[in-house]
């Protein structure tokens, strides 16, 4: 009887513990990961929808492989509209209402700049996918990581290509007044200046539709090369209105924003956009890994598009790297995820993702600036050009740098 008295409570306690564990398990499944994307104007909706699709494919693929910590993941996608104030509010909502354990995605730099402080103060790790502004990682915040290229680095490719184009002495830069556009334009001005090329910068507000006045002004400057740093619809509007005014991609050397890589949208919105140059993140499709090829095939099947855009690849990897970090951390605790991210080696669709600088090693130890903190150092950036009207973006000619080149650029005289 005495033994029974001891055993029964033990059995009851064990049952309770098992129930409690099941309850706890049930409560934390699925594991929620936030996904930031601009899904309405004035954000770059075309880019946002591509990122959403890619993040949902990441969710599907990760769950098909058994999920994370024995749970499925759920990517909670939220619309930032490309606006900083909305982004901060949405980050707050993801953390406090949706209960996400980490956040991926993010398209506009202003979104990254505004939302990173919210996540960092609440101890939620973020892997930004497509936000270029240097200060996003430059503030060296514990929970903030990035797999997109740095603005200073991406701008470097843009201005270096412009500088090597024949006969370029004077460049017009049309930029949006945002955390992406302002520093990118500044970096281009300084870079071009270092090569003895003068430039003039025109600023416009995000969401501007009518560029007729500013196009005339750019035209009056008679630049040899035009660099347009306008995301989304504004970039489309500028390019076509410039073409209508006789100063578009077929009239002058013209760099358009990478939103033009969405070829269906580009040709519909900028029918006279042939010969435009664009920067593209990631290696060319011919150099894709098996996982990237599979993703591209699934993406094309789901969307009916001709190819997958670089920001979609980045969005996919941002979720993938978070999922692996949670698995390696063995927990959804923010600090544990950060430690795992700092030590991660993730075979993503963009390549092997890792973060060489963080709490273990400061960027300054290698003589690098603070922007290299939690920054993936290897994204490839190429310059591509539409060389045929109606051409899909995956067959665009890679014209720079030499290592990835698939054809010669066509320079408009």
């Amino acid at each position: 009887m005495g033994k029974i008295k001891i055993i029964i409570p033990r059995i009851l306690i064990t049952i309770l513990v098992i129930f409690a564990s099941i309850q706890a398990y049930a409560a934390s499944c699925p594991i929620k990961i936030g996904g930031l994307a601009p899904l309405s104007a004035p954000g770059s909706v075309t880019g946002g929808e591509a990122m959403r699709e890619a993040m949902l494919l990441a969710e599907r693929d990760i769950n098909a492989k058994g999920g994370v910590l024995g749970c499925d993941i759920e990517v909670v996608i939220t619309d930032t509209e490309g606006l900083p104030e909305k982004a901060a509010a949405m980050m707050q909502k993801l953390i406090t209402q949706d209960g996400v354990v980490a956040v991926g995605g993010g398209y506009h730099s202003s979104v990254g700049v505004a939302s990173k402080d919210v996540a960092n103060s609440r101890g939620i790790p973020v892997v930004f996918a497509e936000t270029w502004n240097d200060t996003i990682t430059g503030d060296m915040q514990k929970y903030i990581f990035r797999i997109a290229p740095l603005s200073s680095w991406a701008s470097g490719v843009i201005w270096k290509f412009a500088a090597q184009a024949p006969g370029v002495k004077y460049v017009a830069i049309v930029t949006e007044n945002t955390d992406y556009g302002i520093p990118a334009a500044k970096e281009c001005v300084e870079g071009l200046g270092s090569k003895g090329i003068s430039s003039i910068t025109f600023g416009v507000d995000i969401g501007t539709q009518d560029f007729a006045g500013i196009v005339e002004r750019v035209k009056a400057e008679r630049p040899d090369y035009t660099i347009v740093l306008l995301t989304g619809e504004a970039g489309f509007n500028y390019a076509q209105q410039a073409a209508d005014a006789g100063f578009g991609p077929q009239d002058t050397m013209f760099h358009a924003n990478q939103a033009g890589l969405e070829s269906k949208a580009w040709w519909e919105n900028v029918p006279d956009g042939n010969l435009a140059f664009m920067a593209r993140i990631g290696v060319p499709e011919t150099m894709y890994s098996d996982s990237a090829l599979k993703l591209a095939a699934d993406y094309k099947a789901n969307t009916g598009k001709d190819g997958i855009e670089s920001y979609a690849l980045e969005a996919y990897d941002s979720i993938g790297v978070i999922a692996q970090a949670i698995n390696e951390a063995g927990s959804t605790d923010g600090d544990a995820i950060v430690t795992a991210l700092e030590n991660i080696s993730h075979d993503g669709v963009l390549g092997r993702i890792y973060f060489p600088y963080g709490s273990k090693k400061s960027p300054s130890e290698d003589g690098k600036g603070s922007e290299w903190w939690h920054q993936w150092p290897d994204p490839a950036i190429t310059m591509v050009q539409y060389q045929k009207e109606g051409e899909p973006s995956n067959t665009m000619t890679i014209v720079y740098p030499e290592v990835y080149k698939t054809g010669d650029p066509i320079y408009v005289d």
Partner: protein
Amino acid sequence: MEYSAIFWWTTLWLLFWGVVGSIFTRRVYLRKDLDTSNSILVGSMVGAAFGPVGLVPLWLKTPEISRKLILIPAFVSVGIMMIAFALADPQNNCVSNGSFVASQITNGLIIGIIYGLMALGLTLIFSILGIVSFSHGEFYMIGGMLVYYSTVVWFPGLHPVIGVLIACLLTFMLGAVFERLFLTPLYDGRIDRPVEYGILITFGLAFTLQYFVQAVGGANPVKAKRFFDFPRIRLPDKADPWLIKTSRGNMELFDTISISNPRFVASVISIMVLLGLLYFLYRTWTGKALRAVSQDRDAATIAGINPHHMNMLAFAMGGMIAALSGATLVQAFSWLPQVGMIPAMRSFVIVVLGGLGSLPGAFIGGIIIGLVEAAGTGCVPDPQKASSYIPAYGMIVLTLTLLLRPTGLLGRRFASGTHGKL
């Protein structure tokens, strides 16, 4: 700006004498027991244009205030500002590049005509129903979307002009149905606060339309094809086409003025519609009835006009006109469910500037805003700021106008909405 002191001192001089004129002219007219309705405006204009040389005779003679007395000093003031700007910044494109100036003016006029047409719809609704339609921008958006869907998605190959007609028809019907279903409570006393009701219900329509389009069609930018390509013209001869030179999307006149095809086509359609609208309003019985209701609802009712029918017609036509503006511009701009927000705000500015309820005022206001925006974008010396301030240019003009003439340019002094009531 090379000699900015010239410009800023001139501006200060104009402002100082403008303020002096506006304050004291009213007092002088008041003391002499004269009509003071436009005394502030005249005083400020004469003061700004001629300083004490103009103000003293004005105060001594206190002539009856005529349109000439307002317009001449207004043009002189603008002229002084332009001369000061030219002296201060001689290298500016607006001073040294005639071709640039001509192109900017042309662009300003063209877009101003389209703005004016859109604002015309808003003022038509206000003048008859006495409510400000906050769904005006969404009618504009729907107009463009209908042209896109009818010519690209539903019936590929359909000529865009037919798409425009479809857009007009459907938006007219939408406006009429909405007015019957939701605005009639304004007229029969079922609503205690008609102004607030009008704002809220049209806001509701705006959100419904915007998110309906987003849900059905997505939020990706779309664009209709150019309605017409310019034929290839080289005049007077191919070798030296100084008179006119066209490509598919652009027309160049006198080797100076550059006009893009979509804007040209949109403005031509707008002018044609405007002429048709003027004919309708001033030459047909229904149009006259509409104007009669806008001027005096009670008198119009006694004369046998059914004001309820006019309410419906005004709202439907107002929405259709906004939709028509959108329908013509969907070939020029990338189109999104949110595309109507900025044009709607601009329409509000134009309507207030032109004078609430004034149809010619709305059109003139549109052209003024178009020209001011073109001037601001083209002439502000700092290229980083010139385009960023586009919405501010119109607001400056509006603020100045309201300060000097609170009824707007052509507004009626005692115009007040009757909110559709008898």
